C-alpha cells in the first residue's frame, strides 16, 4: 500500500478521473465543477441582479455535495495520504521558476511566493490570486465550462465546441506564462 503515499502516476490519475465521470453519469448527472460557482452566486442573492442566476439551485444541490466531497478529499489526501508534498517537476521548470523568483519550485506542492503563510501582507501576491481567480470564474462561465466540463466531459462526447474551448484554455495559459509572467515576476 506504500504506493498510495507517493504521487499517483498519470495513467492511474487519468483513469480515476474517467471513473469519476462515469459514476456521475450513472448517477444521472454530468461532470462539471465550475457550475457550482454559479450556484454560489444564486445562493448569495445574485438572482435579484441578473436573470442568469435565476434557476432552481436545488436541482444543483448534488454538485455542491460533490464539491464538498472534493474539499474533504483534499483534506484527507494532504493529511493522511501524502508522505512528502514536494512536486517533482522537471529540472528545466525548476530552473526557470527559480530564476523568476520562485525559490520553492521543486520542494513544495504550491509556491510559497503565492500560497505561503506570509502572503496575507503581500498585496501583490493577493492581487495576483484575485485576478487569476476572477479570470477563471469569468472565463469558465463565458466558455460554458472548465477543465472538467469541456476538457473531460466535452471531449469525451466528441464536442467540437469543447475542443475550441480547450484550445482557448491552452492559448490563454501560454500567453500568461510565456508573455505575461516575465512582466509580472
Amino acid at each position, binding site marked *: 500500500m506504500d504506493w498510495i503515499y507517493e*504521487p*499517483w*502516476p498519470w*495513467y492511474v*490519475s*487519468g483513469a480515476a*478521473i*474517467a471513473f*469519476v*465521470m462515469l459514476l456521475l*453519469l*450513472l448517477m*444521472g448527472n454530468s461532470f462539471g*465543477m465550475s457550475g457550482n460557482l454559479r450556484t454560489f452566486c444564486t445562493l*448569495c442573492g*445574485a438572482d435579484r441582479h441578473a436573470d442568469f442566476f435565476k434557476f432552481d439551485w436545488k436541482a444543483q444541490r448534488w454538485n455542491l455535495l460533490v464539491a464538498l*466531497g472534493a*474539499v474533504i*478529499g*483534499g*483534506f*484527507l*489526501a*494532504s*493529511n493522511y*495520504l501524502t508522505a512528502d508534498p514536494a*512536486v517533482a517537476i522537471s529540472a528545466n521548470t525548476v530552473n526557470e*521558476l527559480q530564476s523568476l523568483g520562485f525559490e520553492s519550485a521543486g520542494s513544495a*506542492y*504550491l509556491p510559497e511566493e503565492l500560497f505561503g503563510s506570509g502572503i496575507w501582507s503581500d498585496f501583490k*501576491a493577493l492581487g495576483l*490570486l484575485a485576478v487569476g*481567480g*476572477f*479570470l*477563471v*470564474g*469569468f*472565463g*469558465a*462561465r463565458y*466558455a*460554458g465550462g472548465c*477543465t472538467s466540463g*469541456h476538457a*473531460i466531459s*466535452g471531449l*469525451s462526447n466528441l*464536442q467540437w*465546441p469543447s475542443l*475550441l*474551448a480547450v*484550445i482557448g*484554455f491552452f*492559448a*490563454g*495559459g501560454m500567453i*500568461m*506564462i510565456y508573455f*505575461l509572467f516575465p512582466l509580472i515576476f
Partner: protein
Amino acid sequence: MRSLGYLLIGIFFGITMFKSEAASWFRIYEMFKFDAFHMYGIIGTAVGIGVVMVWVIKRFRVRSFYGTPITFDNKETKIVRYAMGGLIFGLGWGLAGACPGPIFTLAGAGYLPILVVLAAAILGTYAYGLLRDKLPH
C-alpha cells in the same frame, strides 16, 4: 443515501486531484511550458477512456443507477464564446494555477490563500452574469 453517493464521489475526486498533482500550481506551469508529459498523460488517459465510456453508454443505451436514460447535452454551435471564454479562463488558470475542481481540493488541503482565488472566481462568475447580454457569444 443518494447524497452520500455524491459526497463519496467528491471525496474520491478530491483525493485524485491532490494525489495526481493536477492541483499543483507547479504542474500547471510545467504543462504550459511543455516540460513534462505528466498532465498530458492525465488528461489524455481520462479523455481516451471517457470517449470509450460515452460510446458504450450511447451504443448500448446504458441507463443510470435509477433506471433513467443517460443523456448528453450537445454544446451550442457558437464560436466566440468558446474562443474568448476559453482564452480568459486559460489566462486565469496559468496565473492562479488552479481550475475549479482543484480550488475546492486545495481549500480542504489547508492552503488558505486559495480562498482568495475561490472568492474572486465567484465574483468573476457574478460579473459574467451581469455582462452576459452585452458580450458577444
